[in-house]
């Protein structure tokens, strides 16, 4: 049998396993049924006191417990759960022996407040210096903190648990991270280095510090009451994104390897692309060129034209700037089709899962292809008259969907897009 190759002669990359956790719940079944029902996972934060904060809601994942609690610990636990789900579905390799590399999108890591307070108590006086911290940390008493708060620690844990091969890659490209992890997996398979790759993205960083930081950037919605109505992509009265937690995992394989072992093919990663500008640390370039270039590169990578895309899973953060920019740039690439292709933003319901969003939304896109049903963009009561997308507002829509573009346009001009299809072209 000749290896199925794409138009550019590269191995076709397919998805054979998926796992997902968001504020809506654990697993594909629960997430999908709630997503198409238009349920919101956004709620008032109970994890820490919110007195005096402008934003008091988020899409926290409270049903996953971690002890001792830390954002990095929660990220790790969620990554473990979604990987288990994806591996069970894929039925690949053996327990603790995944036959390929790991690409992990994970939020930046830092020592968190409970651990800082513990160190402070050990010093024993309210004023202390770096030398005091070194003195109490000698002898390895806090080596667990050291290991926990290294960027590579989550990936090292997953690599050991699931037996992925080689040195695991931890990556962060802001809001594009999840899509980047998938892109790295696709490219490794296309280069012929491996027949399979495990791509995981996780973010459990709803903590006071992260919330305050995004708040200081005026990036977050402050429409706290009711929390379910806070995230309003493409609406005139949108006022920012809603922080959220979640994780997604995908098992990628070459079409040849997947069919050879009789695996069920869930979808195809037909194209991926990225383009980054250095315009500003949070804002995107006003001319939209990096976003336009990102979408064009992705279409070229898939060997497709805009008229072959019949659904766009938007970045759709609900910040005033993103949604406007997203419509303008999509129009530049798709022309009049930008007003015809059905567009939706999963973030209206699950919030912005930041480092995980690209993978979470790729999985929702693949479920959209499977069910031929587009989840709604909820809270779409007052459309922004300058954003002329064909928004799937408030109610799920049955549609013929053969190819989805899933977009991630991150802070700092870090952009990545994916094109997902049901069958190899």
């Amino acid at each position, binding site marked *: 049998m000749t290896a199925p190759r794409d138009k550019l002669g590269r191995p076709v990359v397919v998805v054979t396993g998926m796992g997902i956790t968001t504020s809506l719940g654990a697993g594909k079944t629960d997430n999908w049924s709630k997503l198409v029902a238009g349920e919101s996972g956004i709620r008032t934060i109970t994890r820490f006191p919110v007195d005096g904060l402008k934003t008091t809601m988020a899409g926290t994942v409270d049903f996953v417990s971690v002890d001792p609690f830390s954002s990095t610990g929660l990220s790790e636990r969620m990554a473990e759960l979604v990987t288990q789900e994806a591996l069970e579905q894929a039925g690949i390799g053996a327990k603790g022996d995944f036959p390929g590399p790991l690409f992990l999108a994970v939020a930046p890591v830092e020592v968190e407040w409970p651990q800082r307070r513990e160190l402070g108590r050990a010093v024993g006086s309210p004023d202390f210096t770096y030398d005091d911290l070194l003195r109490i940390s000698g002898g390895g008493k806090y080596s667990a903190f*050291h*290991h926990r708060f290294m960027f*590579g620690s989550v990936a*090292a844990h997953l*690599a*050991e648990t699931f037996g992925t091969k*080689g*040195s695991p890659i931890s990556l962060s490209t802001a809001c594009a991270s999840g899509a980047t992890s998938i892109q790295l997996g696709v490219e490794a398979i296309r280069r012929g280095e491996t027949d399979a790759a495990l791509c995981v993205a996780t973010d459990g960083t709803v903590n006071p510090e992260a919330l305050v930081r995004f708040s200081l950037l005026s990036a977050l919605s402050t429409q706290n009451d009711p929390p379910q109505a806070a995230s309003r992509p493409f609406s005139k009265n949108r006022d920012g994104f809603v922080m959220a937690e979640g994780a997604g995992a995908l098992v990628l394989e070459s079409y040849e390897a997947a069919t050879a072992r009789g695996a069920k093919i869930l979808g195809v990663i037909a194209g991926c692309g990225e383009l980054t500008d250095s315009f500003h640390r949070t804002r995107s370039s006003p001319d939209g060129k990096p976003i336009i270039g990102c979408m064009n590169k992705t279409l070229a990578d898939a060997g497709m034209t805009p008229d072959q895309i019949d659904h766009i899973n938007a970045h759709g953060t609900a910040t005033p700037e993103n949604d406007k920019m997203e419509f303008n740039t999509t129009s530049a690439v798709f022309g009049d089709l930008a007003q015809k292709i059905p567009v939706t933003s999963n973030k209206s319901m699950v919030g912005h899962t930041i480092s995980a969003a690209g993978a979470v939304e790729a999985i929702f896109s693949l479920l959209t292809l499977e069910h031929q049903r587009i989840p709604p963009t909820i809270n779409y009561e007052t459309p922004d008259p300058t954003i002329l997308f064909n928004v799937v507002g408030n109610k799920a829509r049955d549609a013929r969907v053969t190819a989805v573009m899933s977009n991630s346009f991150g802070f700092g001009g870090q952009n990545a897009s994916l094109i997902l299809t049901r069958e190899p072209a």
Partner: protein
Amino acid sequence: MGQAAEARGAKPYAKLSSVVTDLARRKQGGDMEATLEKLWDKLPKRAGKGAIISGASGAEPATSEERGFLKKHADFPVRATGTMFGHTMETQFPLGIALAALSISRGALFPPNDSTGTEIEMQGAPTQIVVVGAGHWRGEGMALVEAID
């Protein structure tokens, strides 16, 4: 090889022939050393004068295991970058590659800087340098930097 660089008139320092990585489980003594040996075997080394540039952090037990590995390849003179630069974490490995490329382009390894006898003088020009990056906690990597033919 190197067509794009030559086409724009750039002068290459050296050739980065291979980069390999792994994640030893480091559960028992010798796990990491065994992984370093496996990576060493994967590098397409050739006959000719070679050297090793190590990014050892000094943290234990990683550095002792790396020392065991280095002793088995004593025909490759060693230089540890941590002595001069400290441990720069993520930067240590590319730093090693840069120093390897510079050494090859200048036709001489930089002098030893160590009182334990691990680093010895090297006579003549190295044609290949192996860069070793063994994480203080996790992760092993190696690169082969070669002279341009």
